[in-house]
């Protein structure tokens, strides 16, 4: 198994406040990894450090055998932020074109990727509309399409399915699984939705800046004697208090 992301003894503090504490784990190629934990646990901070937008206070993060932050590795990371960062005066197509042109893609590839990404999130019909007129769910879908635009090896999706209806959520998860199986992509998602957690290959539970549990959904359920993931989450939390 090839390792794509390795996080070693990573701690992060903002001023006096410790946000992440001694996080260690490895991510394998071709797996979906879920970060679950309550709001404010430090999931987003961890994701941002993997992207290289922030640096750990101590410890190190390697992506594809390079220490982060590294500009060249960003070609291989598709990132979807928690809040939609889109240009609302521009159309969906213009947004996609703009982000596509920031990556090393030739004209034909760019066109092909835009069609693929827009089709995946069901936005092909709406690409000529201005993003300002989009609904919340449409914006979320456009953000996801942008994360996929350069065909990256690694996908970091910060709460990708918030505000997306169950049907589309189901098809997005199917596509994530297809990308994992056929394209060997490494995918990290943060989520609150426990049935999504069950579809991950590995789960990292983060609470108060610490990694409290790590394993396959099945392992975690057995370890915490739980029948559902909600229970795992609650039991793991209690045990750690």
């Amino acid at each position, binding site marked *: 198994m090839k390792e794509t992301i390795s996080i070693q003894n990573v701690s992060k503090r903002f001023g006096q406040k410790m946000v992440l504490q001694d996080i260690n784990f490895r991510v394998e190629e071709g797996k979906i990894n879920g970060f679950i934990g309550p709001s404010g646990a430090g999931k987003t901070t961890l994701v941002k450090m993997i*992207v*290289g*937008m*922030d*640096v750990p206070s101590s410890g190190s993060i390697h992506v594809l055998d390079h220490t982060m*932050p*590294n*500009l*060249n590795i*960003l*070609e291989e*990371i598709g*990132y979807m*932020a928690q*809040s*939609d*960062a*889109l*240009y*609302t*005066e*521009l159309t969906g197509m*213009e947004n996609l074109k*703009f*982000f596509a*042109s*920031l*990556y090393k893609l030739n004209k034909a590839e760019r066109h092909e990727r835009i069609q693929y990404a827009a089709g995946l999130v069901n936005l092909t019909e709406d690409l000529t509309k201005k993003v300002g007129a989009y609904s919340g769910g449409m914006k979320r879908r456009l953000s996801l399409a942008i994360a996929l635009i350069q065909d990256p090896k690694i996908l970091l999706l910060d709460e990708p399915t918030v505000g997306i209806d169950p049907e589309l959520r189901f098809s997005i998860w199917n596509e994530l699984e297809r990308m994992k199986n056929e394209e060997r992509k490494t995918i990290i998602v943060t989520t609150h939705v426990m049935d999504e957690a069950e579809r991950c290959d590995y789960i990292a539970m983060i609470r108060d800046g610490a990694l409290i549990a790590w394993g396959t959904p099945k392992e975690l359920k057995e370890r915490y004697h739980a029948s559902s993931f909600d229970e795992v989450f609650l039991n793991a939390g209690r045990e750690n208090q």
Partner: protein
Amino acid sequence: MRTAALIKRIFQQMLRDKRTLALLFVAPLLVLTLMNLVFNGKTVDSTIGVENVSPAMITQFKAADIKVETFNQTSSTKNTMEKHDLDAFLKIENGRPELTLLNTDPTAAKSLQMKIKQMLSTQKAAAKDPIQTHYIYGSKDTGFFDVVSPILIGFFVFFFVFLISGVGLLKERTTGTLERLMATPIKRGEIVLAYLIGFGAFAVIQTIIVVFYAINVLDVVLVGSIWNVLLVNLLLALVALSLGILLSSFAASEFQMVQFIPVVVIPQVFFSGIFPIEGMADWLQALTKIMPLYYAADALKGVMYKGFAFSDIMGDILVLMIFAAVFIILNLFALKKYRKL
């Protein structure tokens, strides 16, 4: 390549925001025109009442565009003046002139008093030739607007470019797209460069419009070369652009960006030379040295009013270039907030 993509996006956004474009291109012209009208307004002709004044003098008053009404044996000067709407009343009793001024507008009264005094003295000397007056800069037609308009042109270029570039990048910060950009392989330098070129293009157009409008439509005095005027204004626009982008990193909202205007923009007006700097306290004069607008105003006044050549304004141009360079470098560091690399 990435810079080009960013520039293209800035153009798309700007062209779609018609009001901002209007503000950038039309507002400066509007304000300049207004100031032109306000400052170059003709002084209202004064009316003077006279009693016992020689006909020669009355002719002289009339020649100086002063309306004259003759009275005989007025009892109350005040009542007469109010009744006949007079600005002044001159009475000569026993060869001694006695002048009464209405003084509702002290400035107008003072100038009227000056005129009358001057005439009385020439009358005494019985000088036939009018006093010859010489002007080093400008002419007897020079208005206040001619002197301050070079500064105003510079100020409007500075103000509007500062505001629009600052808010432009701020929008990118508040909507999270700047942070999102930082998750792509774009370099910080590429972002700063794209913003300088993207907004710079609009600043160039604005500068050209403002300069040509002021010179051709408002008939502002231009003694020196128009190319030097454009050069100074473009450099000033670059300073405003880089400063606007820089200060937007210290603002959390558009409203906070507007709060920079009284702190950063207005003080520059005071130190730009519209108000005499020589009379200020020494420490205050030293403050002018850190104001970009001071150097631009100095150069513009030099070129437009005094006819300075490029070599005369080289010092000012150099300082403006240093300002721009410093702000641009600081911008590169300010972006580290979003990505350490």
